[in-house]
């Protein structure tokens, strides 16, 4: 009896033990190394976290983000790193699962002690990790477009906000094709916010909104929506459909007999990858607004495209706006950190200090493939030039219009009543400052 009981307890402990022992041993050994308080030590690599999904449904765009970040890091390290110290990426897989995003963020900050995190492709995952990032007063580089309406002291964003994204697209389309437009989007926050902005541009351009429809995320049945569009007879469609749904939308658009010449889709999402996945004949003729296209004809972009595609990271054979925005975030980080080190010295560096010194950081023409951009010194989003491209028969985009000057980012442009995002928090109309508004 005694033997069996002991073995029974042993087995029970095994369960707990297996889970506990490994990390426990791991922690003890590292524990001592944590004595030092500074985030960066002279002569040692600077650790940054890459928090993207390498598996699961979000892996398609996010794997590219990881690859291009590694490319950018290699490029920076080859050129001497930051203040003589190389960057060292800590790459984790968020598995397209918000629970894992949250867990990995904690691990990157608390265990790996990275000085900044680059990550997320969707607002939902960003929201999932922000409480942790804010609680630790850490820094997140969010390298893609989003809806805005957020004012934290812990993020820097290098993609276009909703107020920049469609600013040129809507007037251009109205002018080229006519006043009547139909909005179609995926059913979540970003499309709805983008459409609110688009409505403002539409009103200014004298256009008319015939209808607004939202498809369930991941939904693939566009029959009912296309029927409504057929009845409404718009001059063009404005689309914020994302992901797999977007591909189904373009395919069914053509299959249902719609003609791209008389009713093109103006999209904020359908870029080079999407076109390749749906087949060029379904993408050709439609429009996209983005700050970057692979076909941009500038020396910097040629260098970027060739360099990236030839490197070991270029296996997927294309560059697109999301990757370029991610690429820029690496340089925004580099310049911000250099500026901060100059100001406070290596020992004074904390994630928050980097963020505060990133106000107004510029990435010049000779580095930025999309052309000069700079970080707003109040809301830490990006000043950039949205461009309009039309998809060609070979799947590449022809740039048909580029903004004359950089457009200012404003996360609260359509909610002036709520306040204005400043460097220290959201300033309400009553003058009160609120921190960490998400």
């Amino acid at each position, binding site marked *: *009896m005694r*033997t*069996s*009981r002991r*073995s*029974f*307890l042993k*087995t*029970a*402990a095994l*369960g*707990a*033990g*297996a*889970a*506990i022992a*490994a*990390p*426990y041993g791991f*922690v003890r050994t590292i*524990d001592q190394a944590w004595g030092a308080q500074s985030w960066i030590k002279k002569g040692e690599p600077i650790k940054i976290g890459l928090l993207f999904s*390498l*598996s699961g449904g979000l892996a398609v765009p996010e794997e590219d983000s990881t690859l291009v970040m590694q490319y950018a890091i290699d490029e920076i390290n080859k050129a001497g790193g930051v203040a003589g110290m190389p960057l060292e990426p800590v790459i984790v*897989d968020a*598995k397209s*699962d*918000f*629970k*894992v995003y*949250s*867990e990995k963020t*904690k*691990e990157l900050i*608390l*265990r790996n002690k990275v000085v900044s995190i680059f990550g997320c492709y*969707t*607002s*939902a995952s960003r*929201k*999932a990790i*922000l*409480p*942790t990032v*804010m*609680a630790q007063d850490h820094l997140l580089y969010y390298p893609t477009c989003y809806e805005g*309406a957020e004012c934290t002291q812990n993020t820097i964003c290098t993609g276009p906000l909703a107020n920049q994204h469609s600013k040129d697209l809507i007037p251009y389309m109205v002018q080229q094709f006519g006043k009547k437009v139909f909005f179609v989007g995926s*059913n*979540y*926050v970003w499309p*709805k*916010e983008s459409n609110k902005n688009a409505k403002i541009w539409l009103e200014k351009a004298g256009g008319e909104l015939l209808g607004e429809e939202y498809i369930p*995320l991941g939904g693939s049945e566009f029959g009912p929506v296309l029927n409504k569009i057929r009845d409404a007879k718009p001059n063009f469609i404005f689309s914020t459909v994302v992901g797999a749904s977007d591909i189904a939308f373009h395919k069914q658009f053509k299959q249902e007999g719609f003609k791209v010449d008389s009713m093109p889709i103006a999209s904020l999402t359908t870029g080079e990858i999407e076109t390749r996945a749906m087949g060029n004949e379904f993408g050709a003729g439609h429009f996209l607004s983005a700050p970057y296209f692979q076909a941009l004809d500038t020396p910097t972009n040629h260098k970027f495209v060739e360099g990236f595609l030839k490197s070991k990271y270029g296996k997927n054979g294309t560059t697109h706006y999301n990757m370029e925005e991610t690429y820029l975030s690496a340089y925004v980080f580099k310049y911000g950190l250099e500026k901060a080190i100059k100001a406070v010295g290596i020992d004074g560096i904390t994630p928050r200090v980097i963020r505060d010194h990133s106000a107004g950081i510029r990435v010049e023409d000779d580095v930025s493939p999309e052309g000069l951009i700079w970080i707003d010194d109040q809301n830490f989003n990006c000043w950039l030039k949205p461009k309009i491209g039309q998809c060609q028969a070979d799947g590449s985009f022809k740039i048909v219009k580029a903004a004359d000057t950089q457009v200012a980012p404003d996360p609260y442009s359509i*909610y002036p*009543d*709520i306040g204005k995002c400043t460097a220290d928090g959201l300033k*309400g109309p*009553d003058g009160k400052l*609120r921190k*960490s508004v*998400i």
Partner: protein
Amino acid sequence: MNIYHNVKAQWLAYAAFFAVLALVPVLVSDSFLLNQFATYGVFGLLALSISLCWGFGGILNLGQGIPFGLGAYGMAMTMQMQSQDASNPLPPFMLNNSLDHLPMFWEPFRNTTLGIVLSLIVPTLFCAIFGGLMFRARVSGPFFAIMTLAMLSAWYTLILDVQPYTNGANGITPPSPLKLGEIVVDPYSPAAYWTVLVLLLVATVTAKLMTLSRFGLVVQAVRGDAERVRFLGYNVAGYETLVYTISGFIAAVAGCCWVMLTQYVSPAQFDTTFSLSMVIWAGIGGRLSLLGAIVGAFLIQGAQSYLGDTFLNTWLLVLGGFFILVVRFLPKGLAGLVESALGKLSSRRGRDDGNGVAASRLVPQPGE
């Protein structure tokens, strides 16, 4: 006889397991690890609830994400309202969705106590109503599983669609940790860990007692042959509804704890893969053993955290393959392995004692 079936030995194993968990904050100062283990504890609660419902009641529930998610939303709403004050009465996302006053159903969440109570009661009530409807109509087995799956999809779609009230796909992100009166429950503190651990302990002990009670016995009989139980005078639908509801309540507690730890909730909590992974935890750990299921959750989540990146792309492949093997060859999961190992041990001893009956055939407590 097999020590595995000895109730005293079972309690000892429980005690040992919780003693080990209680040692974690004493030995470890790493706040990440504490938070991670607290999260595992939440998953343990979920696995426990599945084991209760599926292992003991025979009710395969693929929609445990519903009570979990509803509890989590309730808690997130409560925490969100804690950071609103008179000058800012509305959560920021509502302003973006052009609401000018707090929706009716958010009002109670201004009060923390009421909010937490609601977070627990609403999902429980849902389970009672949905379970009651289904079990009275004698929907059972695979059909019930499919219906829970359909219900899960329905909730997912609904919460996604009513964006002004739930912030749609982006979910609710309370900016600051939970405050209980004057105490702030820092998700990285031992306090948060202890809260989860104590809840897990209480839930486990209660569930264990329940399986040992006459209720538990009848529920196990229902698992074997529901129809036969009816002819013995028991209202089977009542028993099924009750065990399903209790399991839902535990999941709701888990939902509340989870939001306390991560300060985030989104419709992804209603994702089918999440609900199915709870079933995998319990299945691999051992659906017929409460402790086995909890350990299963710890092991699998631990493996996902610590091995997942090593295996990267093959992780799901490995997990899926492992799960198939367990279902095919080890219906009682890893706990079943322990059971038969101990059975062999005691049958060898048993033969020495001259006891003719093979010990593995003696089953006074199939419950564990």
